[in-house]
């Protein structure tokens, strides 16, 4: 009864043209259709933040967005940040500060951190905690994640580098 619709969008700089069922969530499109399993699916109702990706540069919940809505869009996932051999500065900070244990929330934490660093001064821990409060972590107690984001925010102030974390 429900046909597919064709969408054309860019994910991590690569153009994709796919036929999608309207009800296909962006999170499942990334994981199932494109095989980009870095984006994690937790609660599927916008609460946990594990599935956070960037849509045209802004962080969004990929479990609350349908792929069919995204014709012409640009998506960035955690795979866009760095590689195991060559971590991004933010990923490096997460590693140095022990900001993950099981790692389930980490992709969403990282993509949220990218957007927070872009949009807010993050001059205080309160601001960092407020910014990360939409992402749930059940292992770390958040303190080490806050440490990692603070380190990147501070380094950014020192170098005057507003560039990609």
């Amino acid at each position, binding site marked *: *009864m*429900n046909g597919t*619709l064709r969408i054309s969008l860019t994910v991590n700089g690569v153009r994709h043209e796919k036929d999608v*069922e*309207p*009800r296909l*969530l962006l999170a*499942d499109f990334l994981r199932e259709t494109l095989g980009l399993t870095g984006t994690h699916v937790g609660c*599927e*109702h*916008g609460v946990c*933040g594990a599935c*956070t990706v960037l*849509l045209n540069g*802004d*962080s*969004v*919940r990929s*479990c*609350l*967005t*349908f792929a*069919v*809505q995204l014709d012409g869009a640009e998506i960035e996932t955690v795979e866009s940040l760095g590689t195991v051999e060559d971590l991004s500065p933010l990923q490096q900070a997460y590693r140095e500060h022990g900001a993950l244990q099981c790692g389930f929330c980490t992709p969403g934490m990282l993509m*949220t951190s990218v*957007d*927070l660093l872009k*949009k807010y001064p993050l001059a205080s821990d309160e601001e960092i*905690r*407020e*910014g990360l*409060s*939409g*992402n749930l972590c059940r292992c770390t107690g958040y303190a080490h994640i806050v440490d990692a984001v603070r380190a990147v925010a501070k380094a950014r102030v020192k170098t005057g580098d507003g560039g990609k974390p």
Partner: protein
Amino acid sequence: MKPPAFEYVAAGSVDEAVSLLVQHDGEAKVIAGGQSLVPMLNFRLLSPAVLVDLNRIPGLDGVSEHEGGLRIGALTRHRTLETSEIVKARFPVLNAAMQFVAHLAIRNRGTIGGSLCHADPAAELPTIAVLLDAEIEAAGPKGERVIAAQDFFESALSTTLEEDEIVTGVRLPALPAQTGWAFEEFARRSGDFGIAGVGVTIALDGNAVAEARVALLGVGQTPIRARAAEKILHGKQHDAELIAAAAQAAASAAEPEDDLHGSADYRRHLVGVLTRRALAAAWDRAAEAAA
């Protein structure tokens, strides 16, 4: 869970969106930011045959001047309201309320039209709409009409919008020059729906209150205007006991229920505390504006 199957149409204009709603006769749902709708679909609380997407309609977003106040397009994202300089200048109480709206990823996507139509009584924007006597613009098959915010919210998650109507914008009439304001909300976790909240404005004429407004969040089926509290303040000069009496009247106007997050008694108590704080802060700001 995953959402049930539906057909999808991206409307190119408001007229097209309305025709689609008429054509599907109650079987279609409108999607804007989707931040309330998609969770309900994922939980399978809703199973519309068709989703009509408003996101591709040009000109449906943005903040503009309107008869001394502002007009906010229905598709304006929360993030835009949070950062809008003109909103901050004209309606700082709206700017203050935006600081309590969910989390960045939700604010990047959610819209004012969507929040009003979803009509969650614990959401900030419906409460602000009722506080500011907003006028909600709706387009339907019979043309356009304007609905006063007070008449828009019917009960929890229910509005007086017809099934074939779409909200296209929100008008916020200008506030008097010497208006102070405050927005207070309490939630257990930053960004969660508030357990209780209150928005107030106080306009002074000299030292006396020319107009006071008190709107309550999360303590009833709809946002509640605490008219009795407003009446207590009207025409009066600053007095801590007066503020306490108005806060008490606001607590009495609340119609809270027990739930997982707090008992009805606790919520009513919170309304009194938050209203007292908000009135004191708003009065200070009004006095500063007058000085």
